[in-house]
């Protein structure tokens, strides 16, 4: 496939068998299918195993700080709404360190697709609990098991009326591709939480564990009913729904900013001559 060649990046430094490989491959296929050329896309990522993804792909890349992908992505979109922007983060990255930015990115509804590689663990730092870790997990820093309740990102996003809320699974790449495509094509902030087995550190939420529980939302599911979506969002345990759980169309922040109606700021010329009157205005 030439599509995939076009996106070929550096050699991944992930563990063989890691769920991230499937996500990477699916993303490349998605980009190929929606015919997005590498230079039309910027991936902003945080720090963690997930955050390394853009290096393994060809695209504009800002691999920033742990937890801070969304503000960078926002800054990019607000000055260049023609750029497609995907934020790639880990669960610790996005729901831990970066939790505040997630809340406010959803409120802004900037047109960013956020992919969270949710392996329910801190991978790169060797296996501490993440905000989505289950309570039975014990680690070196949680010797008595996790004492906090796991965060439900889907419910959180629905509570904030996020314009697109979906869950995918690295073990179901066909469906994942569909979700990625919808997320990228969706106008507005799209959260795609991707369950991703970490074969090295997460011995609880394994491929098998997920496979026994994951199901796709049935055809005809109506993602616009917020209350129902919230109910679905609370499902976790025996059955874990994947699919577009909630969706709502509304104007993006870019559309609401008056100065952007004249095109992306990156291409608006700077006119110093116009500003000179500001000095005159300072004369009382």
């Amino acid at each position, binding site marked *: 496939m030439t599509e995939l060649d076009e996106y070929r*990046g*550096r050699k991944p430094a992930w563990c063989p068998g890691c769920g991230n490989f499937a996500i990477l491959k699916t993303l490349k296929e998605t980009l190929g299918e929606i015919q997005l*050329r*590498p*230079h*039309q896309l*910027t991936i*902003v990522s945080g*720090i963690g195993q997930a955050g*390394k993804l*853009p*290096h393994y792909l*060809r*695209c*504009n*890349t*800002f*691999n*920033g*700080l742990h937890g*801070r992908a*969304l*503000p*960078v*992505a*926002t*800054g*990019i979109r*607000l*000055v*260049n709404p*023609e*750029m497609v922007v995907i934020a790639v983060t880990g669960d610790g990255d996005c729901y831990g360190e970066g939790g*505040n*930015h997630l*809340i*406010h990115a959803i409120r802004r509804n900037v047109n960013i697709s956020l992919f969270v590689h949710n392996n329910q663990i801190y991978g790169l730092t060797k296996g501490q609990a993440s905000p989505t870790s289950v309570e039975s997990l014990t680690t070196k820093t949680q010797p008595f098991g996790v004492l906090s309740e796991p965060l439900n990102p889907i419910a959180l996003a629905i509570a904030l009326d996020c314009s697109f809320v979906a869950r995918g699974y690295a073990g179901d790449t066909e469906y994942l591709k569909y979700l990625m495509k919808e997320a990228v094509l969706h106008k507005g902030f799209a959260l795609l939480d991707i369950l991703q087995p970490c074969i090295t550190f997460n011995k609880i939420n394994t491929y098998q564990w997920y496979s026994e529980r994951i199901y796709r939302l049935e055809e005809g599911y109506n993602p616009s009913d917020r209350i129902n979506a919230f109910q679905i969002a609370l499902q976790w345990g025996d059955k874990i729904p994947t699919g577009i759980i909630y969706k709502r169309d509304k104007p993006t922040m870019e559309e609401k*900013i*008056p*100065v*952007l109606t*004249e095109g992306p*700021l*990156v291409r*608006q010329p*700077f*006119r*110093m001559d*116009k*500003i*000179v009157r*500001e*000095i*005159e205005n*300072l*004369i*009382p």
Partner: protein
Amino acid sequence: MDYTIKIGGEAGQGLQTIGGILAKVFVKHGFFLFSHQEYMSRIRGGHNFYQLRFSDSPIMCSKAEVDILVALNLETIELHKAKLSRYGMVVYDSKVTKKRFHSEEFLDVPFKEIALREGGTPLMENTVATGAVLGMLGMDMRSYEETLKEVFKKKGDEIVSKNLSAAKAGYEYAVTNCLKCRFTVPRREPPSRMILINGNEAIGLGALFSGCRFYSAYPMTPSTGIMNYIASRAAEYGIVVEQAEDEISAINMALGASFAGVRAMTGSSGGGFALMVEGLSLGAITETPIVIAEVQRPGPATGLPTRTEQADLLFVLYTGHGEFPRVVFVPGTPEQAFYLTNKAFNLAEKYQIPAILLSDQYLADSQWTMMPFDTERLKYKDYRLRGKRLKNVDIYKRHLFTDNGVSPLAVPGDSEHLVVTDSDEHDEEGHMIEDAETRAKMVNKRIFKKLALIREEISPPTVYGDKTPETVLICWGSTYGVVKEVVDELSAEQSIAMMHFSEVYPFPDTAANDYLQILKKAKRTICIENNATGQFAYLLKAETGFIPSDKINRYDGRPFVLEELLEAVKSRTAQEVT
């Protein structure tokens, strides 16, 4: 002629309206003006003041002595009466203070009563008070009337005319009743049309003129004025201003915007800047240009949130993990703030580094009269590789090794070339690496190659006063005005000069301009700082080995005022140097 008017009262009583209008009026009359404000961290009540000084010769600081004290409440009289000048007067409304003062320096004007009578509402008392001040000064009403019309135009003719009558009534009441007023304000043709500007506006204006297209920040006194100013012009000049959820987001958004291809800025005070430290380091390793305004207030932590101090110098110079170049400017006047903001944007983009403007509450909120800025002196050069020029490049590498350490800064999306950068150490293409060799080369590029060039761009300190001074007053940032006036005052009696630093990092080189000689030859060098520990003196020693012979520090959250600093300097210069 040199008069000081101090308006004191509670937060919410309209001090800023009176002060702001009087400032305009004096400037319209052709006077030089300096104003400064001190206010509490509350919205109503407490005690605030607004102090104006105007003169027929240039002035640039506040004095302790007050010629007219406009007392909007009793507390103002109690707090500031002692500072009245020889012929100084207090104007007040005994109905408000509930206390009548009989000595002759008091002028009791029924502000509220007149306001009610002439304007139909006691809220116009400020207009009355302003009129009264002008009456006491014996100035004509023309400029005041003009200003009132401008200010209230939007509110309709009736409000304008009511204000005009209230103003007039206040004016006439003062003229009639203030028999003891001995002020003589000359009629004066404006020497030229001067602008009136404060430090925050100067930075905001400098940003506009430097092509800043993105400003993200989280509100924080005393830096918020910069955001307000830029936001008020955003629609006109095509700028996106976004209030971030926190300061971490603010700097990361600005870095995103800069990466995407526009000039971007953020601002805060010390506590907010503290949250940007990791982002500062990110800007450095990704070589993403960024300008940051840090408007100081007294710390640590929340400290005195509306007061002034110069205590974040070493903080902004050395903060951030890892090693990287930055520039740090510490403007002393709105004029310096304006031009240095422009220089900050230029150097940030030219060398792809963070540039920090370190201001403080005193500079931020002080109004100065100045000659209109000369926009010819500004530089604007787009250092980015964009559009056609980018398309014509064969191979593009974001962090290319070049002779001078500066790599081409391309705009993503403008061509098929990919722009890749990383907070991890990376290779020329921007991809993460771990090998020792590339690492060392990148450090050489970022630090040693670039820093040598940046150093050449830094200007030496301003020296003012005697050419071969016995005493040198060393200062930096917002103390410029008061120190300069001290030198003016003392020059007749002694050999004295000011050495003011406004570009402190990289520290000005002595090779091209050996300013240290002046210090070494002086008998006495006094480092004057609005902080407790003498941070600039420390820096000077670290950078040049020179140790000032004396220090004057103020650290109670208040700025230096003329007489006090004059006294302090005099007492030092009277001593023999041992």
